[in-house]
């Protein structure tokens, strides 16, 4: 009889003592490989054009991003794919110099020539808007530009 009783003990619980270690490992991995999201998009996530001759932007602290695309709230900002977003709000091309200056203030002067402006514009936005931004950037000597695009397949 006693032989049978032993079987009733059931399976011992799985040792979960190492679980926090595993999760912490994952946590540190994500903390190291990712960067903080710095802006909320007021425009819809732009559908970037595709290109093959692309370069990676190395240093994120030297990059200021200008978004162009369709507003999420057409009642407030109007329709069309040519809304410019600087920081967290819809702006016009005239505000681009002020935006660049505010970005420059945060960095040492020696680094200013290495600053890049990344333009994340929707495929369907118009070249006219981009040209307006570009002229303003040239006025304040922010000459390095990166037209953000997704990597295409080389053929």
């Amino acid at each position, binding site marked *: 009889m006693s032989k049978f009783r032993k079987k009733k003990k059931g399976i011992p619980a799985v040792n*979960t*003592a190492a*679980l*926090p270690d595993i*999760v*912490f490992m*994952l*946590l540190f991995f*994500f*903390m190291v*490989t*990712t*960067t*903080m*999201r710095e802006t909320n998009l007021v425009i819809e996530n732009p559908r*970037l*054009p*595709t*290109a*093959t*001759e*692309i*370069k*990676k*932007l190395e240093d*994120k602290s030297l*990059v200021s*991003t200008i978004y*162009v695309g369709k507003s999420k709230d057409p009642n407030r900002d109007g329709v069309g794919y040519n809304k410019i977003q600087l920081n967290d709000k819809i702006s016009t091309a005239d505000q681009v110099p002020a935006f660049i200056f505010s970005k420059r203030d945060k960095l040492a002067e020696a680094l200013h020539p290495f600053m*890049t402006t*990344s333009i994340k*514009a*929707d*495929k*369907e*936005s*118009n*070249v*006219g*808007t*981009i*040209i307006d931004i*570009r002229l303003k*950037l*040239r*006025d304040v*000597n922010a*000459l*390095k*530009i*990166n*037209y*953000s*695009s997704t*990597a*295409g397949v080389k053929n």
Partner: protein
Amino acid sequence: MARRENPEINAGSMADIAFLLLIFFLVTTTMNVDSGVSKKLSEKPPADYVPPVIKEKNIFEVNINRNNELLVEGDRMEIKDIKEAALKFIDNGGGIGKPGEDGTPGSPCDYCQGERSDSSSDHPNKAIISVQSDRGTEYGVYIQVQNELLRAYSELRNRLSKQRYGISFDELEESYKDAQKSADTKRLAEELKKKVEDIKIAYPQIISDAEPTS
């Protein structure tokens, strides 16, 4: 008093805390590396600036109209054909190049493999590609055209680099970047830098944006 055994701290909820942190970081951070077509703008010309006179044959004109149609050197063209046309134009080498900054006279392009026709560009360093687009042109098409033009340049650079140094220009730039990272390979980096500059001077990317039509 009898010494009590130290009770073990209950670590059962440790995993929950860690998971909470993990999820917080997953939500608030991004992983994507930004990449795109890089360009350097020309500096703002002074008010009394007189643009130099450039021979018609040294300009490769690309027009994009508001219906996203292309006009290249006066002919309609599809986007896929523009690379070949640009390549032919840049690599023509029909005359002598720009004189050097130290006053040395320009020399003919001895590495070009083009047709050497009189009606196309003189030298890669004189060949200018001018892109004129309408204000209403779609941005996606504009980037596609820029990309095709850059492809023409990189094909030429790769070819010349293979000829001179045995590896393609992409690989050359890659190894230069790698060598730059560590102090031990400083000598190598210097050497590679010279090679990279050499190729870049041989085929400079001269793509200018003309005033848009509206």
